[in-house]
């Protein structure tokens, strides 16, 4: 192995995830300590911690190309893993690594650039004969042009950021009266998020399923797919739960879609791990949406059903090795579901709820894999994403996985922030989810309540409120808290203390 030391240009759970594989492969790792998270858990997993907490730069280090290259050179890293988000899909960063003789663990800058620019990706897909939703040929110049093109395609349409991803800069437009306003919002959002205001328009596919294929390629021209993931459980285009495989695909559709995913990857000489995203409509027509040129948050579900460590494959390919798998070697076994436990308030439309994780206890049963970057005492800071942990649940089949999922969710204990747990507790009991007939519109259209609470839970909460009222107003002398460790504190006081942090 030429790669001996990897700089992890990322934080949180993905940094921890990458380091687990690196350690197994006996590769050293370097992490970067930042002023925002000086005590973050990922730092403890690396062999070397580069202290960048005195960096006064406005740009966070994980987005600071020059600084990351400096750190890599200074720490003698021979490779950089970008993780997801931040610079993972930045072609310039990938090129800068190469220019400095540092291996970029990911595809070529050319593939990143072509797939990262959605209008170019559309042209490539069109030329390769890949099925796509009808849309504008390139970027849209102004509101008037947007209205004209949308009329031609037919409403509803979706405005997307050319450099976009993760739902930002995306707006669905149903009537021409809304177009002007939405075009401006989408374009502003795109500029802010991606430094590029260009947007394009596509026919909006109503109520599709989001199906994506995991791709693996090497630098010798071999490309295979590792089956699909279903990611239709989303809100505001952000995925909440993913599973593999999808119950919407049979073997023949899997083969057709998989081959097309491989075909488009080959069109950009794709190497490393990547994801080709499709929309699948109710008549099983599918449309190429985009290709993500990085490791995905939801990669573990694919690892579970294929038994292949995707991070290891990324490192091996970056090291110049050929893929040791052929398409016929790939067998999908069992079922995997990933729940993203985020610090979000499901009662406030999934609004982020950053804060300190006071208590954290996660299941350790054999059917659960937990990928996390936090522990008790960690802080979910507002500047980064709201991820607390990913629960990846395994089952023999989908039904078994859902049953295991129910049990696992009840074993998660988090105090300090509100979380998406009540959402998942509801979801796994929802008939439409169990039937597998849900689409990307599920959260918005099919749910009237975003969370589960059993009929007695509100009564117990009322009991506690009444208890506090009595303690405060009736000056009850006996404090009815049964403290196991002999501490004399009312819950009220305890809470005040917690709030002081």
């Amino acid at each position, binding site marked *: 192995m030429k790669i001996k030391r990897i700089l992890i240009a990322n934080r949180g759970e993905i940094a921890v995830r990458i380091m687990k594989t690196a350690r197994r492969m006996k590769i050293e790792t370097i992490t970067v300590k930042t002023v925002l998270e000086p005590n973050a858990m990922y730092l403890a997993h690396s062999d070397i911690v580069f202290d960048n907490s005195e960096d006064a730069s406005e740009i966070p280090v994980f987005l600071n190309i020059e600084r990351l290259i400096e750190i890599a050179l200074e720490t003698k890293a021979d490779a950089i893993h970008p993780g997801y988000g931040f610079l993972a899909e930045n072609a310039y960063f990938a090129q800068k690594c190469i220019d400095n003789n540092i291996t970029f663990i990911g595809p070529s800058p050319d593939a990143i650039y072509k797939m990262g620019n959605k209008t170019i990706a559309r042209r490539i897909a069109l030329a390769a004969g890949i099925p796509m939703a009808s849309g504008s040929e390139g970027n849209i110049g102004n509101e008037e042009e947007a209205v004209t093109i949308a009329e031609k395609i037919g409403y509803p349409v979706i405005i997307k950021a050319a450099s976009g991803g993760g739902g930002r800069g995306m707006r669905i437009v149903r009537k021409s009266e809304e177009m002007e306003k939405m075009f401006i919002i989408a374009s*502003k959002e795109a500029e802010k998020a991606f430094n590029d205001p260009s947007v394009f328009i596509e026919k909006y596919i109503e109520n599709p399923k989001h199906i994506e294929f995991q791709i693996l390629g090497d630098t010798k021209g071999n490309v295979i797919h590792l089956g699909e993931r279903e990611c239709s459980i989303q809100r505001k285009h952000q995925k909440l739960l993913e599973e593999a495989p999808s119950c919407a695909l049979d073997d023949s559709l899997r083969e057709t879609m998989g081959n097309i995913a491989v075909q488009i990857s080959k069109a950009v000489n794709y190497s490393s791990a990547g994801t080709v995203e499709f929309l699948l409509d109710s008549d099983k027509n599918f449309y190429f949406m985009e290709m993500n040129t990085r490791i995905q948050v939801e990669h573990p579900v694919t690892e579970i059903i294929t038994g292949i460590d995707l991070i290891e494959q990324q490192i091996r390919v970056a090291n110049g090795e050929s893929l040791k798998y052929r398409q016929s070697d790939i067998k999908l076994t069992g079922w995997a579901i990933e729940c993203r436990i985020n610090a979000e308030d499901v009662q406030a439309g999934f609004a982020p*709820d950053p804060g300190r994780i006071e208590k954290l206890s996660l299941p350790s049963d054999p059917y659960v894999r937990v990928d996390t970057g936090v522990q008790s005492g960690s802080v979910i800071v507002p500047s980064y*994403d709201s991820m607390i942990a990913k629960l990846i649940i395994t089952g023999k089949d989908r039904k078994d996985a859902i049953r295991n999922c129910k049990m696992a969710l009840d074993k998660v*204990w988090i105090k300090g922030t509100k979380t998406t747990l009540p959402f998942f507790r509801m979801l796994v009991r929802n008939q439409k989810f169990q039937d597998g007939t849900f689409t990307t519109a599920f959260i918005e259209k099919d749910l009237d309540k975003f969370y589960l609470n059993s009929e007695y839970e509100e009564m117990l*909460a009322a009991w506690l*409120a009444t208890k506090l009222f009595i303690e405060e107003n*009736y000056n009850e002398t006996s404090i009815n808290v049964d403290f196991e460790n002999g501490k004399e504190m009312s819950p009220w006081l305890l809470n005040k203390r917690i709030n002081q942090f």
Partner: protein
Amino acid sequence: MPADKLNIRKLYALSSENRRFCFSQPLKHSIRIGKRDYEVKLKADDKYGTYILWKNRKYPVEIIRSRQNKYEILFNDISYTFTVETPFSLKRMKVLSSGKGKAEKEYLKAPMPGKIIDVLVREGASVLRGEPLVILEAMKMQNEIQSPVNGTVIKVSARANSNVMKDDVLVEIKIS
């Protein structure tokens, strides 16, 4: 302590959706379901923090806010708001509310701290429930803050490009 307080035998916890839970005073440490009493325990330890133990299961609890007789309780990751009333205050409330009817105004508040990206309504505009009124950016996401009611906008306090704290009033709406 005023004598009337000591004579109170019942307390009511009213939820924000007007569900009423009645408890005896002094408070029993059990809750009756059908014909059986189930013991309720409020506990705290280092591993779990504060929790309620009921029917052999632990439920995380937290007191989020308490002001006078109003309590916001986080129970198993869901928050509930109650006002605790005595039989007297409950009676007084009923008299008051029968004269006045329902709340006329709705205050649209910022659900999280963030930056106002855009304000989509003006004063005087009529809005429908679910209509986006303000775009708030927080944690790398732009969030549409929607109208919770049908009504008319009477005041817009949100200004584009300004920062807001959680619970800052963004828009006042007269409910129609």
